[in-house]
Structures are given as C-alpha cells and as structure tokens.
C-alpha cells in the first residue's frame, strides 16, 4: 500500500468530511441518472428505467457505508466522538473534574519540576564538549580529599601522560572596579591549559596563553559576554579596555561567547592568568586542577599515572609533608560539581513520585465511583452490541482527556515551581540550569499519558469483568455494590495509605532533625553580633606592614563606634565559613610514619574576637601582645579539640608541628576556649586559633558585639572603613542572619517534604472518607434493617469505622515496609536522629491512623442517623 495516497485519502476524508460526502452523493446520483438514460436509450419506459437503475445499483446507503469504511477514517471518527463524549461528560461533573484536575495537575507539575531539577543537577551534561573526559585532580588519602599545592600542580603539568590538556585554577570573590564603585564578584585565575582542557575558546580577542603565566607578565583578563555587554555595550569594544581587580589594573584581551557562563562549575565574571611561582615547600594546598583525558586514557590509567607522580615527588618534599598515603587522584568533573546533591535530589524525586501515585490512586477511585454510577449506561451499550474493547477505549479516553487537562495545569505549576526552585534553592549545584525544556516537557507528556491510563485502569477492569446483565436492571442501587469494584476501591485506598506513610515519616524525621539543629549550641550568642568583611587589594597594600596597619587601625576605629561593646578580627566565621583547615602532628602523640596527620579548622583571630563573640576562656591564658611578636608560635584550642586529642586532660602546654613544617619551631597550646562551630551546625566543634598578627591576611572579617542598634553600628563600621580607604567594598551581615542562613537549606527541604507529606496524607484521608461515605450510601438498606431490628446506632458507627480502619491499617503496615527503603536517601540529610527512629515512626503511624479514624468517623456517624423506615421504603 502506498503510504502517501493512503494518508491523503484518510486525511481528506477526515478534514473535508462534508465535501467528501457531498461528492460521494453527487457521484452516485450521476451513476443512477447515467444508467437510467442508458436504459431509456435502449428502449425502456422512463419511469421503469429509473426503478431498474436503482435495482441494478443495489442498496445505495449500504454502498455509501462501504465507501466510508474504505476511506479508513472510522477509527479516527470513533475517537473524535469518544473525545467529544468525554469532554461533555467532564463538563457535566464540574466538581469532580475540577478536583481531579487540581489534584493530578499539582502532582504532575511537581513531578515535572523535580524532573527538571534531577535532569539539570544529576543527569545533564556539563556545558563543555565531551565533558565525560574531564576530571578534577585532588590530593586524597584514605580519610580525606583536599586541594592541590603549587608544587603538585607544577609536577602534574610537567610529568603527566594521561591528559591532552591540563590546567590549574582557583576562584575567589574579589573587588572589581565598576561604573558604580567597586563590586564584589567572583574572579577566576587559571592557566592556559585550563581553557584548553575545557575547550573554552574566546569569541572575540585572544585567549590566555602560557606566556601570560610567567610571573611578572602583564596582567590580562578574559570576561564574560554579559559583562562586556553590560559595561561596554559590545564585546568587541571591551577588548583593550582596562579593568581593576583588587586594585590591580588588568587589560581585557578576550571575551567569551554568550553561552560560556561557567567554566568547570565556576561562574566567574572575569578570568585572569594564574601565575605560579617556585615554592620552598610542598604546601599550602589551595589550587584546583582540571584535565582532559587523552583518547584511550581511562580514569584507572590516569589514577596510576598520577599516583606515580605522587611517589616521585614525595621524597623531594618529605621534610614538610609526611603523609605518604596522600595520592594525586582524578575524579570525574561531573561528580565534583554535582557533589553530594544526589541523595537530596533522589529523596525528593521519590517523594514527589509518591505524591503523584497517591494522586493517581485518588483520581482512579473517583473514576471508579463515577464508572459504577454509569454501570447502567454501559450495560445498555453492551446489550446494544458495543464491544468490550470499545467500552474500555471509551473509559481510557475519558481518563486521558482528564489527565491532559491536568497536564496543562501541571505545566503551569511546573513553570511556577521551576521559577521558585531557581530563586530559592541556590545552594543546589547547577540550579541555574533547571528549566522547563524539551526534555521536561516530554517527561510531562509521558507522565500525563501514563497517569491517564493509570486513573482509568481500575474503571476499565471493573467494566470488563462486571456482568452486563446485572447492570441492565433499572434499580441498580438495590443490587448492592459490585464486589469487584469494591475490592478495587479498597485496594486503591490501601495503596494511598501505604504511599503516604513513608512521606510522613520522612517529613517527621527531617522536622525532628531540624529541631535538633536549632538546639545545637553554636558556641556563641548571635544576638546583636555583626560582621563586616573586607579584602585588601595587593596594588594598594603591597607589603604586610600596610595590611597590618590597615587592620589594626580598622579595629581601633571600630571600637570607637557608638553602641559597640566589643570587636575583633578573624579569618573564619561561624557557623560555616572556615578559612583554612590545617594538618598537625602532636609531639607527644606522633602519627606513625606514612600515616595521615589529623586536621582541624584553623583560624587567625585577634583577642577581641572572643569577647565580641562571647566565647569564654576555659583554661590557660588568652593571647598577649607578646604572642604577636612572632617569637614562638602559640595557639588556643576549642574544648572539643582538647577533648578529642587529650580526653585525659592537660592539653594546655602541649606542642605540635603544624602544617607539616618540621623546620619551624613547634606550636604550643596556651589555652582552651569555648566551642564554636565552623563546619556547619551539624559539624563538630574542633577549632584551633592562632594570634592574627603572626599571619595577617588580606581578606578578613571584623566581628563586633553591639549594645545599640546593629544597623547603626554597621553604618559606623562602614564609615570607619571608608575613612581609611574610600574605595574598599565592605560586605556586612548579622550573625543571627548567618546562623539563620545556615539553617535555610535544611528548613527548606523540610518544608518541601512536609508539604508533600501533608498533601499525600490529605489525599489518603479524602480517599478513605470517600470510600466509607460510598459504603454507607450503598448499604443504607441493610443498615436500616439492622437499626430496625434494634441495633444501637453507635454500634453501627463503630462497625463502619472499624471496616475503614482495616484498610488504613493494612496500608500503614505496608507503608512501614516502604519506609525502610527511604532510609538510604534520608540518612545523609538527618542530624541527631536515625533514619529508622522508632518514636518518630510510631508517632507518625499513629497520627496517620488517627486521621484515618476521623475520616471514617464522619461518614460512619451518618450510618447511625439512617432513618430505618425511610431506608426500607426507598
């Protein structure tokens, strides 16, 4: 069969149905007239000829039907009529339709949103060509993974054999000169190999070359298309302009194409050449390395290659770095960017899937009830010769039309949901890639059609297995509910409870862990504490003396701000901004040769810091000006640190080698201070402080305790900073906000899961409410008889409620089983509570049971109020 002519005829028959019919009519009439004329020519009587012509033709209507069949449009026409029928039917039950569209639309919209998130965060490719060949290189020992040192980076670049290109980079927020004063923006520094490895060419100008990496080479910058357009209107005009970063003037040599917004997961507006100098020691570890595997090279071969480099360079620097278990290790770039978002995103994908299933079960129940209300209509249809397949198609069309409407609503929900995610879930990696794109729309369509089949499935089963004769009887009410329909409906309600329980348990556990987190003592009283962060550019603060002078003056001037009661400088801020993690080796408890040294968050502070934060000195002494002189290195440790390494006590006075510097004089612990969290509220409270003057840094935080209005004190601090340097950007915050922000992510996840759980539980309650109401209506007569025979009304209620609760209980028991499955995803999100915390699980199960009892009791009460006489005479 010729496909083209086949479809041309079908489409013509379908689209120009009226014209086609008219043509058929004309053609057949022409035939009969032609035949009549022919017979007259052959001598027949005109009236007789016409009759004979019709006779010879055969049944006109029958052949018309045959022609219509031959057009091959039957299936479509039936489908169209089914659709018209379904739409009319939905319009006749506006409440049912609205409820179903709302429930399913929310479910589909939420699923699509989560799909878009999963797709962008976990599944989608990175915006680099052949990104599966890109790796990040780390230092890794059996317990830890950290950054790369200059020495490592230089060794990798010189010795590696596995990569066709390898580059070194590092990104820090920096002050960039702008039309409206200095701005804090993320600035990347990278070697030419970095751009080669990512295959990130510039659109205009020239890329960064290896000649730019030589220390002392003119400072150059590549900027994003967005920045070029914003500042100069046109990328071409940006070339050759100068831009100031942290006080250093850079020449713009190139602009990236508009699509290049992030490189290796770093969304920096400006990239400059990283210039690495020769180092006297192995550390510090501060760089990132990215490489593109050669064709044929694998992660395994690269691992061997890099481990070889580690072994070769280890002896050269063994005096300063003694962890022989640390190996340079490649990790797929995607893994490093997606990071540990996996369990969270999986958990929410599962949660939203459960909600959608509950919604489907709910709507399926509604469809089932409606279909059994139409049992009589179906009986008539079957009796008139409609095939069962035809009937099933009718029901499925019904369901699919309904879910298509819900899907349309769902797409709006998804648009809103995706916007919400983009605006509020900023801690998720790659969240800016989340979009309602073709893949998300395809997912929505497939999910919509699948739910269409799913919601109509039970009704189809009921219709196909029901007896046609039974439903033909006029009084369907008195035949009692069809057993099979009842069983299906019960199964659906059981499923709803089984699916809702794990959601509720998850929400309960997250809520509990959030409350645990709020109970965590951050180690300080955040009330009235403010912070101001500044970074001093190299250009204007060339030597350490200038840096030191600035910070010292700032601290002094800040203390004069009215309303400020204590102030100090620090490199790290609680609860989750730890500047540096340092390794150390206790002199009296040394690490065995080749073993991994312990590490702790390491911060530099001025003595005023502890006063400003309200952290007490527990043992030993505070820093004195003499400690800052640089005589012998001294540190204060947190109580948690002291307990970890000296549980027997006596930490004060102990000595250690810090940072692997064996040639440096040992560091002495001079005191123990109260615990402060630097690794998030869920992290431990280990901390080591050294006096700041011994190691002044360019980027620091001023912490101040206020007795007056925090906003006014912050204004005073800004003025003080401006008095010292008018061009310095100052970022301010209150510690309460910082503490609140550190809880923002868990709070948000908890809120979302609670939302899902409450939705599911509500749907389940509605489901069982509907089931029991229906049962009571169906059994009015038998209830009436029992009441008439003297049954107590309360007994009737109890009977009905008990029956409903049996369904709920079965569902809850199955749900408990499902709860065990979610443990894996939940565990990493929980703090201070186990994923199978029995009290939570039991409380949630009982709560859901209570909700079910209420949902059954309301219709159950109706049973007690049945008027026996009325019910019997109906």
């Amino acid at each position, binding site marked *: *069969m*010729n496909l*083209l*002519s*086949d479809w041309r*005829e*079908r489409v013509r028959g379908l689209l120009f149905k009226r014209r086609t019919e008219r*043509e*058929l009519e*004309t*053609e*057949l009439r*022409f*035939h009969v007239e*032609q*035949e009549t004329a*022919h017979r007259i020519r052959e001598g027949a009587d005109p009236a007789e000829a016409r009759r004979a012509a019709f006779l*010879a*033709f*055969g*049944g*006109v209507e*029958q*052949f018309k039907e*045959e*022609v219509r*069949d*031959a*057009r*091959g449009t039957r299936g479509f026409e039936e489908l169209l009529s089914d659709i018209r029928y379904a739409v009319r039917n939905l319009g006749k039950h506006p409440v049912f339709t609205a409820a179903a569209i709302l429930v399913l639309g929310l479910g589909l919209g939420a699923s699509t949103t989560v799909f878009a998130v999963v797709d962008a965060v976990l599944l989608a490719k990175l915006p680099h060509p052949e990104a599966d060949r890109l790796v990040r290189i780390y230092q890794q020992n059996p317990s830890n993974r950290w950054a790369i040192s200059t020495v490592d980076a230089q060794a990798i670049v010189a010795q590696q054999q596995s990569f066709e290109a390898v580059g070194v980079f590092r990104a820090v927020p920096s002050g960039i000169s702008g039309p409206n004063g200095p701005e804090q923006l993320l600035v990347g520094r990278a070697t030419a190999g970095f751009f080669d490895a990512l295959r990130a060419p510039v659109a205009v100008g020239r890329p960064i070359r290896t000649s730019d990496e030589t220390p002392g080479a003119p400072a150059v910058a590549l900027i994003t298309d967005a920045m070029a357009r914003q500042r100069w209107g046109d990328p071409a005009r940006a070339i050759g302009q100068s831009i100031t970063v942290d006080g250093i003037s850079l020449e713009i040599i190139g602009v990236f194409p508009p699509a290049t917004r992030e490189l290796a997961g770093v969304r920096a507006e400006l990239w400059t050449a990283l210039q690495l100098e020769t180092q006297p020691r192995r550390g510090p570890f501060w760089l990132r390395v990215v490489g593109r595997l050669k064709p044929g090279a694998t992660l395994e071969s690269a691992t061997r290659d890099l481990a070889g480099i580690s072994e070769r360079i280890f002896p050269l620097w063994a005096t300063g770095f003694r962890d022989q278990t640390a190996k340079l290790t490649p990790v797929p770039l995607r893994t490093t960017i997606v990071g540990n978002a996996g369990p969270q995103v999986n958990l929410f994908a599962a949660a939203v899937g459960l909600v959608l299933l509950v919604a489907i079960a709910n709507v399926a129940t509604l469809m089932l009830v409606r279909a059994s209300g139409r049992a009589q209509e179906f009986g008539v249809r079957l009796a008139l010769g409609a095939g069962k397949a035809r009937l099933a198609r009718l029901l499925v069309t019904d369901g699919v039309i309904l879910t298509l409407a819900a899907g349309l609503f769902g797409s709006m929900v998804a648009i809103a949901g995706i916007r919400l995610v983009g605006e509020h879930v900023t801690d998720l990696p790659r969240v800016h890639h989340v979009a309602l794109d073709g893949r998300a729309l395809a997912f929505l369509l497939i999910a919509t059609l699948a739910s269409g089949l799913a919601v109509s499935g039970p009704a189809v089963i009921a219709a196909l297995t029901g007896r046609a004769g039974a439903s033909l009887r006029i009084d369907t009410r008195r035949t009692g509910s069809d057993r099979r329909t009842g069983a299906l409906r019960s199964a659906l309600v059981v499923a709803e409870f089984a699916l809702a329980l794990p959601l509720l348990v998850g929400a309960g556990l997250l809520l509990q862990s959030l409350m645990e987190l709020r109970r965590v003592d951050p180690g300080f009283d955040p009330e009235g504490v403010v912070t101001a962060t500044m970074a001093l550019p190299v250009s204007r603060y060339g030597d350490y003396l200038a840096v030191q002078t600035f910070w010292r003056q700032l601290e002094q001037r800040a203390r004069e701000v009215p309303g400020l009661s204590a102030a100090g400088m620090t490199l790290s801020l609680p609860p989750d901004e730890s500047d540096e993690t340092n390794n150390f080796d206790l002199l009296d408890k040394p690490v065995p040769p080749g073993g991994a040294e312990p590490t702790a968050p390491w911060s530099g502070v001025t003595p005023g810091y502890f006063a400003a934060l309200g952290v007490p000195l527990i043992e030993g002494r505070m820093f004195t000006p003499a400690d800052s002189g640089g005589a012998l290195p001294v540190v204060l440790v947190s109580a948690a640190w002291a307990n970890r390494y000296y549980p027997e006590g006596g930490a004060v006075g102990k000595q250690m080698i810090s940072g692997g510097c064996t040639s440096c004089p040992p560091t002495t612990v001079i005191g123990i201070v109260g615990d402060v969290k630097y690794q998030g509220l869920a992290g431990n409270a280990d901390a080591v402080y050294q006096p700041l003057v011994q190691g002044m840094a360019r980027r620091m935080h001023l912490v101040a305790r206020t007795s007056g209005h925090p906003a006014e004190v912050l204004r005073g601090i800004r003025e003080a900073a401006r008095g010292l340097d008018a061009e310095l950007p100052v970022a301010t915050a209150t510690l309460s906000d910082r503490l609140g922000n550190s809880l923002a992510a868990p709070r948000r996840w908890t809120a979302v899961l609670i939302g899902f759980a409450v939705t599911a539980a509500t749907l389940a309650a509605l489901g069982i409410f509907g089931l029991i109401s229906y049962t009571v209506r169906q059994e009015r007569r038998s209830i009436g008889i029992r009441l008439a025979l003297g049954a107590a009304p309360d007994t009737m209620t109890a009977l009905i409620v008990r029956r409903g609760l049996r369904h709920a209980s079965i569902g809850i028991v199955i749900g408990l089983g499902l709860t065990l499955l979610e443990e894996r995803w939940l565990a990493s999100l929980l703090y201070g509570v186990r994923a199978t915390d029995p009290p939570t699980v039991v409380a949630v199960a009982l709560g859901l049971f209570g909700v079910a009892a209420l949902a059954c009791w309301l219709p159950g009460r109706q049973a007690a109020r049945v008027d026996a006489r009325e019910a019997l005479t109906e």
Partner: protein
Amino acid sequence: MADSSELLQGTLELLVLKALSLEPMHGWGIGHRIGQMSREVFLVPQGSLYPALQRMLRKGLIRSEWRTTENNRQARYYLLTPAGERQLDQEITAWRRASGAIEGVLAFRLAEEG
C-alpha cells in the same frame, strides 16, 4: 457459488484496472465497460464498484478528478496512476500463469483413463 457470474475475489480490481487502461472513465462508464468486455458475464451490483474504487484510491493505483462529460455534466473520472499500470501488468501476468495452470489441471487425464 452457484452463480457462475459471481466475481472471483480480487478480480474486480483487475477488471477496473483493465478498463481504465484504455481511457479515463467515470464510475458508470467503468461498470458499463466491464459488462461490455466480459460480454455481460460479470454482472455485479453496480454500487459495489464504488467501495472498490475508494480502496484503490487509497492504494494509489488510481486517482480521480472532476471533469465535464460530453453532455456537459460534472462527473468524477478515474485515471490509472503509474503504480496502477505496473499493478495491471503484474496482475495480468499472474492471472495468465494461474489460469494456464488451472487449464492444465482441468485438461489433465491419467493414461489409463485416456
């Protein structure tokens, strides 16, 4: 199968193709021509031609267009498509082979009978 004039299944299409291979015709003309050609052996209800024509349109063997007859009437004419011509050739060959074979079968006699 008492009526010897009853059309063999699928033969109607062959006859229509043959009729149209001579000249484009309208439906009545095709029926009339088939009757003439078969010396009135094949008498079919004339109406059954039209479903067959619709099927052949879908198969792409023929196409149709509205033309004016000698009597100045609008009528739907059917024309052979190249695919239809090929189909006619194939069916004629197949028919000849089949009818030859059947002839042979009917003419066959065993030696002892002859």
